[in-house]
């Protein structure tokens, strides 16, 4: 509801005002994308202003042009014995390896927590123990157990990804409608058939949301995981550059991570639209 006085604009936006933006009414306001692009342009402008007038030393903040050149040379000649593509490839391999592990372990665990009292009793304490722990806290232990190779990096990232996957799967299971379950039972479905044909599809939208959250957690852990005995990877690249105070490479690395994460997000949304079209409808 809005409070409005004759001749004066309403004090609060009405529901219709908000709807109009999405439905494209006559007085179409500026699309959100343009506003966001304007913000980015302004930030770039301020950044180049700051560095070209020497407000900030290039050691702390190299100019956008310098960062662009760093990106170019990263792509062509590389940094610390690997090209940008190789760094990105190494990091992506870890992220996807860890995601595969987290899904293979986490989805069944979430199903067990959501669908069975016994499963909840057994697994809840483990998840609740793991969930609040910062990955850096158990990284040394994982290295003692698994060595400094690829396995420990993937394990740490997977551990960080597990709680969101498990919890969102369990939430998804609980969101399954009683009528949907009862319908299947009245057509003669066994417990296993109910799980496979009703519970899992009901939980799918929530599992995908959990996967997105897990990817976010994965990126934050990646940098930490690549601190130790890595020879490739975006996190490793940024840290080596920071040690030699090659700030333009540091910033370039950050931008690459942001860009890759953004592409992931876009891909996730496309996958959602394709895999669970009903969750946005209805």
């Amino acid at each position, binding site marked *: 509801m809005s409070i409005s006085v004759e001749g004066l604009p309403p004090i609060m936006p009405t529901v219709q005002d908000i709807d109009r933006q999405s439905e494209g009414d006559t007085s179409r306001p500026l699309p959100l994308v343009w506003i966001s692009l304007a913000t980015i342009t302004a930030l770039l402008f301020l950044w180049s202003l700051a560095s070209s007038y020497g407000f900030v030393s290039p050691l702390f903040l190299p100019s956008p042009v310098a960062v662009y050149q760093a990106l170019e040379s990263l792509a062509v000649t590389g940094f610390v014995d690997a090209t940008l593509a190789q760094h990105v490839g190494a990091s992506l391999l870890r992220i996807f390896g860890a995601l595969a592990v987290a899904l293979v372990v986490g989805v069944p665990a979430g199903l067990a927590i959501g669908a069975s009292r016994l499963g909840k009793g057994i697994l809840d304490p483990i998840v609740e123990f793991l969930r609040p722990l910062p990955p850096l806290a158990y990284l040394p232990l994982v290295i003692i157990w698994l060595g400094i190779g690829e396995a420990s990096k993937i394990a740490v990232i997977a551990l960080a990804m597990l709680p969101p996957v498990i919890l969102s799967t369990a939430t998804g299971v609980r969101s399954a409608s009683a009528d*949907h379950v009862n*319908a299947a039972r*009245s057509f003669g479905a066994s417990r296993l058939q109910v799980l496979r044909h009703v519970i899992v599809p009901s939980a799918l939208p929530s599992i995908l949301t959990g996967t997105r959250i897990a990817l976010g957690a994965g990126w934050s852990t990646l940098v930490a995981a690549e601190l130790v005995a890595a020879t490739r990877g975006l996190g490793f690249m940024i840290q080596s550059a920071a040690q030699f105070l090659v700030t333009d490479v540091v910033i370039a690395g950050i931008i690459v991570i942001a860009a890759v994460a953004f592409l992931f997000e876009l891909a996730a949304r496309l996958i959602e639209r394709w895999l669970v079209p009903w969750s946005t409808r209805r």
Partner: protein
Amino acid sequence: MSVLSLENATLRYTGVDGGHPPVLASVDLSIDQDEFVVVIGRSGSGKTSLLNLAAGFVKPSSGRVRLDGAPVTGPGAERAVVFQDDALYPWLTALDNVAFPLRLRGFSRADRLVRARTLLDQVGLSDAAERHVWELSGGMRQRVGIARALASSPKFLLMDEPLGALDALTRSRMQGFLLDVWQANGVGALLITHSIEEALLLATRIIVLAPKPGRITSEIFTTFGRDHLAGTPLSEIRSSPAFRRLQDELTALIHAEEEGIAA
């Protein structure tokens, strides 16, 4: 011919504090496979609970539910349920929803789609086969729900206010449709409704359920549905004096019972 029966069935939902009053008390009801039984009663009288007992979703606290003499221990394909808000699976197309019960029984994809198409034809939705659930109107969804229930080749069709969410015009068309389905498939029907008119139009037998505790207070046998199947249009039946009179009587009866409870 199969018989589905509730024998002296009492249902008490056991909450935290245990001693709840029964929701259904000593209900005796036996449905033959050639009957169309309609349960009517006001909100909270235990209609859904009665259907849930018959479907096997809940167990009676005392008494028995039997199918052809054998105790019912849970839900089963011979008693397919049609839900008030359709309960179609949004991740499946209309056709795959109808084919779902056949999938559970391990039919090959080709076999179940052939059978599902026949059923969609029967409910007049051949054109909507590939549509998603959210692309169907309320009436279409209910017809898909009924086709899906029929796909499990049930002996009984249990319907909890299947037309409750529809507009008046669609609803009256669907009433004729339900009679056709009942006749064409040789299933016993148990239908719940709030509408006295609907009960009179569809039922071969009307059961009046009185609340607190839910119990059967009257049984009325009617033939309007069969008249319709024999060729009389529903509109003519609705405006006939006999129909009007029974409608008034039934309304009065239900009101009198409510007074009785209030007193």
